[in-house]
């Protein structure tokens, strides 16, 4: 209905295979970016940022990462929390070891470290498939968490066993530590999200992505037509872990500021991110964002209703939240196994074909 495609023809392959081939989508995309970068920063307060924006952005990165591994390469992982922890602790060690190096670089490096760890834990995926692999990744989850708990070196022998981010600045503005302005932390995360999304898109639209999807859809055929499964799977683990690591680092350094590995990066984190990509849609970057947005806003919303409106005790609402999330996941799997992204695609198709039904 809103689409006008007559006269929108492509005269080159780059133009034909661009991310948003339809002009209308392209404009929308630029508008969203513009708003995110040029408008929102001026209208945010601490509550909005900490309750909604930061978690949304950071989980989006994690979800993109997991979606690359699970959605594109078809390797189910329950170790996301553990890998986020790697990112967080790597970032912490780097921040404290090299105080003068720019924090942004540390975050990226943290991602790199996580990629290495992730690749190592990805090795079994060559022999182990499906659920077996999913369970195997739990090994990473538990082992890593245990490791960061037990080995004092990781938390610099602090008495509490916690790690907390010292203040670091970018261009003279604090982006970590207690007196960080809300908009600054928002912008930092936004920049990372944007870059990560672009990278993810580029990797998935090209040869790399096809390799992954080939393995996902039919690994034997993929190998016979020349895909090296080792390479395909490990790259998937590496890239995925990199994103997850970055999100972990931001989660710790920019968002929480101080974490205790057990509760911040426990098994539930793994599931949370997994849900995000299921509800959002496997094998879709947009899905990662949609899922993150959904599961970040839901609790806030429920709390609003339960606590503020009905005046229920918070623990009760927390339980209700479990119920609702559980129900939602089941509902989605029954109604739309391909997630919000698919709904979005369908809606778009309808609009493009309007007024025709199909």
């Amino acid at each position, binding site marked *: 209905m809103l689409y006008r495609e007559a006269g929108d023809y492509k005269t080159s392959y780059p133009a034909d295979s661009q991310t948003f081939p339809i002009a209308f989508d392209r404009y929308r995309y630029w508008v969203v970016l513009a708003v995110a970068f040029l408008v929102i920063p001026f209208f945010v307060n601490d509550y909005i940022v900490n309750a909604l924006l930061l978690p949304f952005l950071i989980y989006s990165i994690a979800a993109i990462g997991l979606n690359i591994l699970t959605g594109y390469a078809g390797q189910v992982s329950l170790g996301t929390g553990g890998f986020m922890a790697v990112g967080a602790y790597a970032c912490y060690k780097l921040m404290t070891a090299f105080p003068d190096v720019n924090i942004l670089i540390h975050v990226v490096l943290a991602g790199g470290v996580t990629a290495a760890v992730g690749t190592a834990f990805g090795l079994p995926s060559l022999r182990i498939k499906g659920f077996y692999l999913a369970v195997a990744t739990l090994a990473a989850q538990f082992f890593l968490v245990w490791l960061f708990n037990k080995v004092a070196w990781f938390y610099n022998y602090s008495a509490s066993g916690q790690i907390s981010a010292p203040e670091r600045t970018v261009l003279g503005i604090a982006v970590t530590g207690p007196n960080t302005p809300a908009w600054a932390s928002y912008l930092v995360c936004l920049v990372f999200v944007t870059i990560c999304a672009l990278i993810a898109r580029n990797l998935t639209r090209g040869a790399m992505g096809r390799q992954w*999807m080939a393995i996902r859809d039919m690994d034997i*055929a993929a190998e016979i037509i020349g895909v090296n499964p080792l390479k395909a799977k490990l790259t998937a683990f590496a890239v995925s872990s990199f994103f997850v690591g970055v999100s972990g680092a931001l989660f710790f350094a920019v968002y929480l500021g101080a974490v205790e590995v057990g509760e911040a990066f426990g098994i539930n984190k793994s599931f949370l991110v997994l849900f995000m990509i299921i509800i959002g849609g496997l094998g879709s970057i947009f899905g990662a964002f949609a899922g993150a947005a959904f599961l970040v806003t839901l609790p806030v919303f429920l709390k609003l209703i339960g606590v503020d409106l009905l005046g229920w005790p918070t623990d009760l609402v927390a339980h209700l939240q479990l119920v609702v999330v559980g129900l939602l996941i089941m509902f989605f799997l029954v109604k739309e196994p391909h997630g919000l992204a698919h709904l979005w695609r369908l809606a778009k198709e309808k609009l493009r074909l309007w007024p025709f039904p199909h």
Partner: protein
Amino acid sequence: MNDRQTGYVTEDGRQIGDVMLDLRDITLRFGGVEAIKNISFDIREGEIRAIIGPNGAGKSSMLNVISGFYVPQDGSVWFHGKKRAPLKPYQVARQGIARTFQNIALFEGMTVLDNIMTGRLNYTKSGMIAQAIWKGKAEREETENREKVERVIDFLEIQAIRKTPVGRLPYGLKKRVELARALAAEPKLLLLDEPMAGMNVEEKEDMSRFILDVNDEFGTTIALIEHDMGVVMDLSDRVVVMDYGKKIGDGTPDEVRNNQAVIDAYLGVAHDE
């Protein structure tokens, strides 16, 4: 017909070259069962070689051996005159051997175009970083591959379904897309596992035309398994006949047609053909 030195000339005057792929005394077992019993035959440059035989004769296993998916217990595979060390399937593919599958093995989650593009994966040189940045090397490479792929699409006349998800295609077209994917890899040797299984007459004619054209335009050597005798006799230069894992015949279509062992085998299984 088994002199390994020089080639021969076909009725329609095509020059068939030297031996490209040579299978010597291949034996393949699954646990106790012998799927292939000590089979030898060769495939020559530029020829269309058919492997026929009743169901369960071990034809597909033979292709799987060639494409490195099964490793035979005994015997050796010689490619371009060199003995081939046991390779992983993807390494075989990189040597220039592409194939299609008996029951279609397309990547259901992707569009026709993406499926065919996977055929070009072995030609991708740009590394992960380059691909992450996209602009520049990766994009150039993508474009080059796309150009090659579009030639194939044009060749197989599937322009109209370029952007359709393969899941939605009818059977016949899927087969064609699979062939396209194999061709996109610009193989030296093309293995076709029952390319016309379950097709109607018209589709079969198209497919036969394509196979001949491929062999003709690109000079691709083709080895194919097929049940439809008519098709086999029309298409192929030489035929290997298998039965219960043994080779019972090898030669030109006519030679094979008049080979007693073959006739028996086929009469014996006429019902399940």
